[in-house]
């Protein structure tokens, strides 16, 4: 469905006293999803995860530059093509209720999303009612304003907005942030259902535990790059995980006694070589010489000289 190769995102901005600076937020990111699959992208807060979703939709701010190759349904995704696919084929479930206009009624906003996704004007009302019913939202919710929604309700409205059309690729940005475990589980359940109907779901989160509940595959994302792609089952034990960072993530799970296997990622190296070598316990001379490529290992991929 979607394949990303070597994606990078850069920003130019000004620091104190108006000095110009370029920052590379994402570099060398690789990712692919098949229909019917939930692919979780896991990364630390501030690793550029939301930017990934925005880049895939072509809605980054103007001071951003994107490089790399993205193809959707086998065809190269150009900005022009993206403009026609956005909303109709690729849909975003945003992070929070602030993504709804505070002064417009919820129903109006969902109807507009339906209209934009290509549904004809006369079918819009029934489609919207069905979308609300699908997520167990009462009909009267359509006349509410966003601030009247509870956290879980807001999440369902956002999901309804994104899925009211026929999009095949759903990008869910932090769908569980700020929700209690039951509501979060419900939100994840909705994503699983969507995948089961043949859509591809990209689940972007910092929370490995919630991701493992529904994901088929997991892409571990660190310091702006893909370090490992593994099956969700691989996280059942340390044996199948190959990258030191992924192992550290696994070990940090509450069920796995929090054993620290890696120093915290505070610094990454830009001077060539493996970006993580400064905090990796297994580093040796090879790590300093060249940055590792992503290589195939069984079902997944890994970016490490020692895997």
């Amino acid at each position, binding site marked *: 469905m979607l394949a990303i190769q070597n994606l990078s995102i850069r920003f130019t*901005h*000004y620091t*104190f*006293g*108006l*000095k*110009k600076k370029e920052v590379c937020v994402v570099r060398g990111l690789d990712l692919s999803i098949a229909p019917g699959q939930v692919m979780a992208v896991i990364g630390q807060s501030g690793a550029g995860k939301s930017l990934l979703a925005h880049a895939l939709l072509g809605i980054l701010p103007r*001071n951003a530059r994107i490089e790399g190759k993205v193809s959707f349904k086998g065809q190269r995704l150009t900005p022009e093509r993206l403009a026609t696919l956005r909303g109709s084929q690729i849909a975003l479930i945003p992070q929070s209720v602030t993504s709804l206009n505070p002064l417009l009624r919820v129903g109006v906003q969902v109807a507009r999303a339906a209209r934009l996704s290509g549904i004809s004007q006369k079918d819009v009302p029934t489609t919207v009612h069905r979308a609300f019913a699908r997520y167990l939202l009462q009909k009267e919710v359509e006349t509410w304003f966003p601030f009247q929604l509870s956290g879980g309700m807001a999440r369902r409205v956002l999901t309804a907005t994104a899925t009211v059309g026929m999009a095949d690729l759903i990008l869910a940005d932090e769908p569980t942030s700020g929700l209690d475990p039951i509501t979060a589980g419900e939100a994840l359940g909705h994503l699983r259902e969507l995948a089961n109907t043949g859509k591809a779901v990209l689940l972007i989160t910092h929370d490995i535990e919630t991701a493992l509940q529904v994901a088929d595959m997991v892409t571990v994302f660190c310091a702006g790059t893909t370090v490992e792609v593994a099956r969700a089952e691989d996280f059942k034990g340390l044996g199948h995980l190959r990258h030191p960072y992924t192992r550290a993530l696994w070990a940090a799970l509450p069920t796995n006694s929090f054993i620290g296997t890696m120093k915290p990622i505070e610094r990454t190296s830009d001077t060539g070589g493996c970006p993580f070598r400064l905090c990796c316990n297994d580093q040796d001379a090879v790590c300093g010489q060249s940055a590792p490529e992503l290589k195939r290992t069984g079902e997944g991929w890994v970016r490490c000289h020692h895997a």
Partner: protein
Amino acid sequence: MMTNFLVLDRRTRTMMVILGCLVLFSGIFLGAWLYGEQGQVTNLPLRKLPPGWDRPFGTDWLGRDMFARTLKGLRISLEIGLAAATCSAGIALAFGLAAATMGRIVDVVVTWLCDVGMATPHLVLLILISFACGGGAKGVIIAVAASHWPALTRVIRAEVMQLRTSDYIKLSRRLGRSSTWIARHHLLPHVAPQFLVGLLLLFPHAILHAAGLTFLGFGMSPHTPEIGTLLAESMRHLSTGMWWLALAPGLALIISVMAFDVLGNNVRALLDPKTLRE
């Protein structure tokens, strides 16, 4: 040259704009000083001359050189504006700090004073105060100073209030830092730029209001030709076709006021972290 200017990064550009404004202001003061009393000299054979090479702004009905008069008027206008705005900003700083630090009662009183100060249209208040002071340059300065402080007071009060309740200042207090230490290390670096920018952005208002007040006939006498007075005089000669009497001094005033605006906004851009993103 123009393309070079656009290619320069924003920092250099901002600095150059600030420098340009400062050069303009010193030019006005220097020019007014060089011309001295020349604008007062009547020269009847040369009266009612339209602008030309030797007299860029023309001469008036008494043959006085309008360029010299404009420069002097501009100088007086700027002086009045600067004096009034500085007084106003001083009042705002004192009130703002008092409201934010001296307890609830002072805060209520200052907030109430701000409300009262903003309740009447500026110009009506200016007329009233200028009337109460019996006119003159002093009246104009007092009027402008006494009517422009509420907005800046609110800004400073809000800023200091927000800082005082911020976590890092509470922490500093817990760690046993003295009030003066906190004021110097935490409050000053935040409030000083805000105050400076607020002061700079008060200038244009003060200058315009002072000019408006003198135009209406309050304050300055015809012997101290402030820009507003010049323009009020030129009103009487509009129908005789002496267009240059109104045009040039007005444009000069607009350019100086805009220069202050530009200066204030650029200094803010340089100091305020919120404008850094682009």
